[in-house]
């Protein structure tokens, strides 16, 4: 009895937190509240120049925010792994965020380690204001409990490099060092990323050029790994329109050296909102026209009661891209308080490469 009661309360929390959960009740407000009106929180306006290192830190005047890292890795034998490290911040109230328990920010974090035959996840929650979790811009440090992502003295604000990332769960852990030579990439229109035709948007920048190395530990067995990683930073007060029910989001590392970010926001009327950026080998980020993007599911996987489109065909005609994506592990289900699908993918077709797929709202 006690467990179910508590689960109930965690769900209550989920609805309040409204970061990713796609609770049935919450549909009316987009993703469980992500479509809620920004109210007294700061609004995302076009034309704001992002500044670093300041914007690496938290933005308490906005409702929500995240630090999102995904990595496609391989061990010496060529076995593929995927790693996810995410820290979410949500403010329950707008305004000053005092130190101590009166602080109205809640932190949530997810970590995952994926291989072809297993997918391990872990989740953390913390209150802001007391030191259990938080993010500071200089020196850059994001942490919750014993998970962290930190830059230290040597970190260059323009590249967000080098970074040390670590997380652990009951049955897995990982520790990676991330380095990048190239500067950060602004998504959308110079960091202003539109999410609907009605003005919903977020500030969004990425570091897609990370080289990652370190070790992953599964059931007590450590393996040395290497690969590439992609970090997303996004904050907003109302990122979704109230009728948007979920998204399919891709980050692609093409073997040509190009990087592609694409997403499709599904609306309750069946229509979709497409957006994406092509980051060429020169490091320039160019917005893709919505009608240039074609994303179609090609296969589905049954996970519990849900059907998830885990294989996709993606075409971007102006860039002569026509690829198929397949998941490393179709069961990359994040069975966290707010469940979603997130896992590494392989790319074949006009281009080859690896990437990450995230699907919410199924």
């Amino acid at each position: 009895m006690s467990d179910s009661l508590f689960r109930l309360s965690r769900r209550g929390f989920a609805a309040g937190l409204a970061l990713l959960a796609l609770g049935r009740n919450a549909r009316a407000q987009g993703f469980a509240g992500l479509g809620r009106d920004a109210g007294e929180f700061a609004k995302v306006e076009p034309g704001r120049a992002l500044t670093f290192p300041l914007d690496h830190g938290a933005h308490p005047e906005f409702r929500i925010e995240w630090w999102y890292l995904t990595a496609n890795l391989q061990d010496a034998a060529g076995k593929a792994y995927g790693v996810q490290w995410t820290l979410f911040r949500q403010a329950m109230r707008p305004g000053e965020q005092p130190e101590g328990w009166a602080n109205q920010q809640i932190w949530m974090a997810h970590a995952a380690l994926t291989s072809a035959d297993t997918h391990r996840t872990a989740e953390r929650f913390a209150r802001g204001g007391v030191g259990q979790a938080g993010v500071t811009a200089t020196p850059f440090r994001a942490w919750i409990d014993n998970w962290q992502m930190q830059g230290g003295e040597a970190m260059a604000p323009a590249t967000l490099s080098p970074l040390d990332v670590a997380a652990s769960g009951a049955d897995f852990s990982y520790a990676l060092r991330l380095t990048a030579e190239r500067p950060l990439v602004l998504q959308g229109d110079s960091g202003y990323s539109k999410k609907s035709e009605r003005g919903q948007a977020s500030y969004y920048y990425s570091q897609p050029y990370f080289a990652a190395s370190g070790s992953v530990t599964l059931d007590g067995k450590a393996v040395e790994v290497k690969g590439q990683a992609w970090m997303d930073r996004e904050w907003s007060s109302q990122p979704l329109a109230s009728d948007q029910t979920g998204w399919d989001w891709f980050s692609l590392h093409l073997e040509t050296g190009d990087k592609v970010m694409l997403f499709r926001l599904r609306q309750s009327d069946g229509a979709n909102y497409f957006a994406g950026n092509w980051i060429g080998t020169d490091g320039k980020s160019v917005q893709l026209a919505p009608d240039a993007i074609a994303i179609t599911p090609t296969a589905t996987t049954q996970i519990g009661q849900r059907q998830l489109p885990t294989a996709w065909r993606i075409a971007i005609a102006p860039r002569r891209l026509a690829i198929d994506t397949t998941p490393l592990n179709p069961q990359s289900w994040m069975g966290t308080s707010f469940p979603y699908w997130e896992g590494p993918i392989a790319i074949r077709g006009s281009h080859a490469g690896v990437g990450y797929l995230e699907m919410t709202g199924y």
Partner: protein
Amino acid sequence: MKRALWILAVLLSHWRRHPMQLATLLVGLISATALWSGVQALNQQARISYDRAASALGGARTATLVGSNGESLPQQIFVELRRAGWPVSPMLEGRIQIGGRSLRLLGVEPLSLPIEASAAPAIGTSGLQGFLSPPGQTLIAPDTLAELKAAAGDTPLTNTGLTLPPLTPQNESVPGLLVVDIGVAQRLLNMPEKISQLLLGQRDLGPRAPLASIAGGETLRLVEPDAETDLERLTDSFHLNLTAFGLLSFLVGLFIVNSAIGLAFEQRRPMLRTLRACGVSALQLNSVLIVELVGLALLAGLIGLVCGYFIAATLLPDVAASLRGLYGAQIPGELTLRPQWWAAGLAISVIGALGAASASLLKAIRLPVLAAAQPYAWQQAQQTALIVQGALALIVFAGGVGCLLLGDSLVAGFAVLAAILLGAALALPAVLGLVLLLSERVARKPLAKWFWADSRMQLSGLSLALMALLLALGVNVGVGTMVQSFSKTFTGWLDGRLAAEVYLNAASDAQAVEIKAWLRDRPEVQAVLPGSRAEAQLGGWPIDLIGFADHATYREQWPLLESSPGAWDLVARGEAALISEQLALRLKLKLGDRVAVPTPQGSWPLEVVAIYADYGNPRGQLGVAIAALVAHFPGIAQTRFGLRVTPAAVPALVTALREKFALDNRSLADQAALKAESRKIFNRTFAVTNALNAFTLGIAGVALLTSLLTLSQSRLPQLAPLWAIGITRRKLAVIELMKTLSVALITALLALPLGLVVAWCLIAVVNVKAFGWRLPFQVFPEQLVQLVGIAMLASLLAALLPILNLLRMQPAQLVKVFADER
């Protein structure tokens, strides 16, 4: 099958012709089941509450990390542990006062709360945000909300003037407990950035750094979860007490069943013989007899359970009040019953009925088909039975003495009690037989000789009922004496403890100063005795520190159980403390021992120089000098004082104080009112005991009635010859009545010493173990006389019906005795 139904129909026809007998049988079974299951329901209700309290927030079912010296911890240690991978959640616990009522306040951090520790208050469906965001919520049990006379959404003030978040009733909450966010608790308890303990979740969060490597980790001590909670341990005695009463009533009820079934068997003997002669096998007959009995037991059990429910529901408020008063245990006022309770009740009814009927059933099995009159060797059989029973009684007594000498636990105490009662019951027929035999020897006239001899013959039939009477009376005398002793001790103790004539509690320290200045100018006020109270923990037990001034009032009147020389001077210097008896027993403290009380100013070493009685207080108590208390607990309220006033001037002074300073009844009371209040609480504590006592005596009366009814039927052959030789029915009736009353009187007189032994056992063994109180043993003769009177009245009432039957009996029926073959 059809044949079995026919046999059943024939057997049941007996009850149609003897509805009174059926009623007796059912009454016996119903009362046995009702009291037993009523008591079980009470125990179960209490256990559910303890369990809920234990698994709720702040309960003992989760492992915790606490400061090794019991002091509060800095909040930072929570952060350090989390950052080292430990699944800990901070908690801050304390007590606050709202409207004069002291409540437990628990501050929790819901996000880190281990799943297994979070049972009750679902900080839930309304959203965590409501709990965490201003104004927040105070989770409270509906019972407690009602006790505070508050409504949902109210924001009451504490006595220190701080506002609580809106009260939010939750059915799952533990009564008497307020749950708030940890930040709110820190504000209300004025303990910024402090926590009292860390819950340690069972969930594996992965690798964690060793405790010693964490800053401040070396000051932590791991407390493993308790399988049995403190409350369960503490209240064990109380429930054992209730169970013992339930069991006693159950056994007495079975005496009734036994005699009713015995009578029915006696009367159905010709019917059974006829059935056997018609070709019904012994097996079939007995099977049907058992089916009949089980059917009746189920019916009676069901009715008994309903009665038991009502008994429990009636007694629950008193039980709850007792448990709260004695142990601080909170039991909600509404009875919830589990399916197991119903099943257990029916089972006990069936088992009891089969047990009580076993003798009759065995006789039915061995029933000779063609035997004519019943065998007449009753006397010899009776002699043997008496000897065997007497020997058994001696063995049981010896066992009891063994328990007394060797045992040290509460269970041993009850074992001694049980041995005394059982031994006395077993010995009763032998002792009665002896008394009757002696009387017979002394008697001269033939009728008198017959009177005693016939009484002796009747003994075997009556002995079970008399044993029931003896037990009920013995327990009544015992419990009555214990309660009276206690009451007298308590009254004397109250006089000593409440020595000041007027007690008052100012609204604030400022008002206290103002009142003191005003009192200085009143000539009738002889002394103003300031008092203060602080809370702390000692040996894991919550304690109160009572600060009092060095004044002749205390030196002369405070009743101490034992004290060292110069105790008062040592206390006045702040180096020593008086401690309550419960605390001394619990922590095994003797005079001269030292305790270290954790205080905000660090540890406070105190020598134990005296032990005093502190009846009815669930918490341990230490009496210390008020100046030293304020020095160690700066910031405690100094608003209480007692006033020594010329008695005649009390009413005028109270009225003047009330008008001048707007003090209400709660903050200003004279000695008489306080004493009345204390006695009320005290009486409630024993209300349940008294009620169960009365029930038991009532059932013993019914047992006697049914036994006499049984006997009067089977004794016609003995009476008919007397009638035939010229003794009138009226005279016969008087003789019969005298016989019953004399046997009952002897039993009642025997019950007196038995009761006193029981009382001694309760006072000297059980009470000390159960409550931590020792009492002087006192005997109250009026009470004994009264009980003997009640017993005789009950016997008279029980004997009346059979006697009236005899009076009204048609001569033809008496003549028929000689016509029949029996």
